[in-house]
């Protein structure tokens, strides 16, 4: 009786043996140029910023002519984007986990003020002052991470809060006073190390630019070649799935925010060399500029997608637009206008790529 039951219940499947084994297929020619492009970009989301960067460099080379296309100007762009670039590296880590860190620039300025205050005004040896700055950056990141994973606050709200807190602490510690470049030179020149440079022909490369590139290369390695990096992507893609698959997601998230905080402290050191002094009022919009670079670099705000190298290209695109438009004699407001459109287009392209079907 039961046997009969179970076989009769499968009768509807008996026709399967003669069923058509082909699966729904679409030939590439049917997919069209646009569909193929969508697929290629889905596999390599960093291609968009690379193309935009190359096109922008060539276009501004034509418009602004000789002045743009000099080694001096191109390396100057690198220097101009180096601080935002380093912040964008920290921001990328957080955004890949589907979070956001509005406090990156505030952590950076706070740590530059702490290191400068200790080294220049309190006579602490410069290496020790810098180490305290690094520890502070990690600590600030840990605070963000704890609030997000233990108190379960959304990253946006957490870092909006800590942005204000760190900024206020920075004003309090500094008394809203800058530390002058001459004083740093006299007492702790190590703080300005990343402003030093060497020249190759007319190209001037600062150690700050090298630091930015090294940070991106190291993070690329960590994210793509280590288990921890794959976990970071998986958490951003689907946190619940990552948890069920056995990743300790909260611990990894805290590590991500701590690493981001450490990178912000490195940016603090580099910023002293870049600016030449320590100003508590500087880089107030640095967090938003870092998000701009990340988004233009094709890293998805929804997490789990995009390459960290995209953020470097994103920062360079912003720098190329600003430099190119300035050399072409365009008003500053149109630079801002252009960056605004770049952001919107970049996110629209990301949405379109994510809609790709198999």
């Amino acid at each position: 009786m039961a046997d009969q039951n179970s076989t009769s219940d499968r009768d509807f499947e008996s026709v399967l043996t003669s069923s058509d084994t082909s699966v729904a297929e679409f030939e590439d020619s049917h997919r069209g140029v646009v569909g193929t492009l969508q697929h290629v970009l889905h596999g390599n989301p960093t291609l968009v910023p690379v193309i935009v960067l190359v096109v922008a460099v060539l276009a501004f080379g034509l418009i602004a002519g000789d002045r743009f296309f000099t080694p001096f100007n191109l390396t100057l762009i690198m220097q101009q984007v180096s601080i935002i670039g380093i912040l964008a590296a920290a921001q990328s880590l957080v955004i890949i986990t589907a979070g956001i860190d509005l406090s990156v620039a505030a952590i950076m300025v706070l740590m530059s003020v702490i290191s400068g205050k200790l080294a220049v005004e309190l006579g602490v040896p410069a290496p020790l002052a810098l180490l305290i700055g690094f520890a502070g950056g990690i600590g600030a990141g840990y605070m963000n991470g704890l609030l997000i994973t233990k108190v379960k606050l959304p990253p946006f709200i957490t870092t909006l809060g800590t942005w204000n807190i760190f900024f206020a602490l920075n004003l309090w510690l500094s008394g809203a006073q800058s530390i002058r470049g001459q004083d740093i030179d006299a007492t702790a020149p190590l703080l300005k190390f990343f402003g030093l440079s060497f020249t190759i022909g007319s190209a001037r490369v600062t150690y700050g630019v090298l630091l930015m590139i090294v940070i991106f290369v190291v993070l690329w390695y960590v994210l793509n070649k280590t288990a921890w990096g794959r976990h970071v992507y998986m958490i951003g893609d689907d946190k619940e799935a990552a948890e069920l698959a056995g990743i300790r997601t909260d611990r990894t998230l805290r590590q991500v925010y701590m690493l981001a905080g450490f990178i912000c402290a490195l940016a603090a050191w580099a910023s002293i060399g870049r600016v030449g002094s320590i100003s508590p009022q500087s880089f107030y919009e640095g967090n938003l500029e870092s998000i701009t670079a990340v988004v233009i670099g094709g890293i998805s705000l929804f997490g789990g997608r995009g390459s960290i190298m995209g953020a470097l290209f994103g920062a360079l695109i912003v720098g190329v637009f600003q430099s190119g438009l300035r050399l072409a004699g365009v008003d500053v407001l149109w630079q801002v206008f252009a960056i605004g459109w770049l952001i919107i287009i970049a996110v629209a392209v990301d949405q379109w790529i994510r809609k790709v079907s198999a």
Partner: protein
Amino acid sequence: MTNPILQARGLVKRYGRVTALDNADFDLMPGEILAVIGDNGAGKSSLIKAISGAVTPDEGRITLEGQEVSYSSPLQAREAGIECVYQTLALSPALSITDNMFVGRELKKPGFMGKYMGMLDHKAMEDFARAKLSELGLMTIQNINQAVETLSGGQRQGVAVARAAAFGSKVIILDEPTAALGVKESRKVLELIQDVRSRGTPVVLISHNMPHVFEVADRIHIHRLGKRLTVVDPKEVSMSDAVALMTGAMQPDAVAA
């Protein structure tokens, strides 16, 4: 008589005033497919969560191969050899098949780069993933590095089962593996389940699909009102009787007779 590989006695789990598990027992024999059926709210999920480490029961004990075990996370259960394929599959859509299969137990390169730089051995992982997928007859997947989101529902289920079966686990738990699949894909997954059993790994199958349960299960555990009502043999009980037991329309004594 052989001893159960996985056994639970007197499991109790309360959520406030709701009792999800009320002295529930559970036995899984080596090399069998045990189906767990029950109405919605009967406590199937709580039972499976208790066994797979997703929740810690308030009372009762669980033994794996005769050793008493207690887990505080799915990770610990997995390390002990209990793999669970959740209904949501717990796959990361944007990552590759290989990345998904090795999540949490990645292989590192031998030598300095692997030991001190944490460098992953992508090649070894790809080879292993490819071997495991073809072992389970899933090599219609052409590119082991394609993102999971580009796979069909059945292929995704296959990847999740392959992940559970690939690492020498002692018990595999499948939660509603055919619920979201079409006829053809369900067939593939059922064959996959039988394949896993034929390689010696016992399977716990949670399903609402009676034809599928009756086709592959060796024994059927019927869960009702937070406890094990009875265990029946699908060859001796009809589908309608199983449903009657599950819903309380029939008492177990009536069948045993």
